[in-house]
């Protein structure tokens, strides 16, 4: 399971970086989303995967007798997903606005901020 996740994380990061380096705005935002998902899975993996042991203390016990899944990474990932979702939706709307105003999808043409005014 860990190996599979590691490969997926690597693929997500590689794909995200490749997309970020393209010239199209649309591909850039897809790259950012892939990177964000890769980061979320990474937290999940680094918080140690435990199979079939929920973080719940069994009946009649005071403490955990067995190994248990750590709930903290799940809480972190959930928070990060929500925050990332908000930011990404803002970025998508921004890109749509930029496209409507400038009629281009090519990042190389977005250079009016570098010109002399």
């Amino acid at each position, binding site marked *: 399971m860990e190996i599979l996740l590691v490969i997926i994380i690597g693929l997500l990061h590689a794909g995200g970086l490749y997309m*970020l380096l393209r010239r199209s705005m649309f591909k*850039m935002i897809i790259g950012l989303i892939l990177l964000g998902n890769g980061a979320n899975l990474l937290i999940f993996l680094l*918080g140690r995967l435990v199979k079939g042991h929920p973080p719940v203390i069994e009946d009649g016990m005071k403490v955990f007798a067995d190994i248990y899944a750590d709930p903290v990474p799940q809480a972190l990932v959930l928070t990060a997903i929500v925050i990332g979702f908000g930011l990404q939706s*803002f970025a998508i709307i*921004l890109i749509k606005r930029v496209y409507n105003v400038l009629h281009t999808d090519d990042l190389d043409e*977005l250079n*009016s*901020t570098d010109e002399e005014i």
Partner: protein
Amino acid sequence: MIVLPIIFQFVAGTILLFFWQKTTLQKFLSILFSIIGLGISIWLFLLVWENGIMITQSGDWKAPFGISFVADTFGVTMVLLSSISGLAVSIFSAGSMRKERLEFGFFPILHFLIMGLQGAFLTGDIFNLYVWFEVVIISSFVLLTLGGKKQQLEGALKYVSLNLLASSLFLIGIGFIYGLTGSLNMADVAIKLDNLQNRGLVSVTSGIFLVAFGIKSAIFPMYFWLPASYHTPPPAVSAIFAGLLTKLGIYAMLRTFTLMFGGDEFMGDIMVILAALTILSGGLGALLQQNMGKIFGYLIVCHIGFLIAGLGMYTELAIMGTVFYLIHDIIVKTNLFMVSGLILKINGTQDIRELGGMYKNFPIISLLMAIPLFSLVGIPPLSGFWAKIFLIQAGLQTQDYVLIGFIVLGSFLTLWVIARLWSEVFWKNGVYLPKKASGLYFSQMTKADQWLMVFPIVLLSGISLYIGFGAENIIILSQRISTELMDPSGYIEAVLGLKTMTP
């Protein structure tokens, strides 16, 4: 108790949301809330100054498990500075911001931005720091795009994409920290990282943090988004960005690199190199530009280099110089962009080739503007001078002679830029500029609006002068901060409750 400034800003922003269209009422309320917020910050500052580090455990969960809020001297100083800048920008935007922008919720977002900043300064939890960072950047995205002009959208796209990238890097760094230590509380992480055998992994993690915060604070290879976006929004927005957003990255760096990754030789060397290159590229960039907003944008980059330099040298004197420079820089940079806004309102342009004759037409305002401009250069009694003295002294102690050379070169480049600006904008004979239709000019504004624009510049200039002439007080303050930062045991004990201290 110590989360009071955060809660207050949240309440202020929420109340302002109810008066969405009533811009006059919003202006009044925003200024009022900012003044009360400043009062709360001063109160908290004095409390911490008297009692030492104060802790609030949210939900009363014990330290390594819950989210702790920590008010140490560094944190409350930053909260105080952000309140001052917030008040100044609130007054300035009440005078200068156009009605279309105010109707789309400028003031509520401004208060949410300040809430995010103060939260970041007060939190003691690394993941909570990430959340506050996101609060700050989402507010800054909205402020940056408010108005939706072509240039603004382009600048915002660059800003947004690089900040999103930095956020996901920060998140990856947090994942590594959690994997290494199993904790998120910064004090707890500090102890556990110290005991770790695998130093290589710690270095890699600190490298990820360096890149993430480096993008946010615009250090050398990652600064290109800043000059591309900071001159596009209205000057009031640029002012709060310039004063506080890049400094948030510096704050996070100072916090993590002193507390968690204390004194890593290799990272220190990298930071010194980056600092030198940041100073050089920012200074040279500023020399080339003709637009005032862009000149100041590059000067931000240049002076971020000074701050990183102090952190890279990592001695108590160097950290003290950095903290002093940080205090001076927040006030001066906020002021500078307001000055450029006022010049824009008076003349209708920010191109220094077209400007001129400011001194002839507005002698008193020009003298007022001279204070932030020459504080920035660091002409001896003014505030920038003292900070640079300490940095250079620290460099002599650690024998980083090349770095000292770069610091002196950076100061010289700043002097050159400001001198060019002064002679072009203030001394050169003015030419007649055709008036543009958009927006009100300064001379057409009501007396009250004119005062609202000039007063915050007076306020911040006064504070700059105080930092310069009352330097001994600021030295005592930054000495105390640097002692706390360099010896984090007091912080760790207070957070983990080894020494009980209830607020």
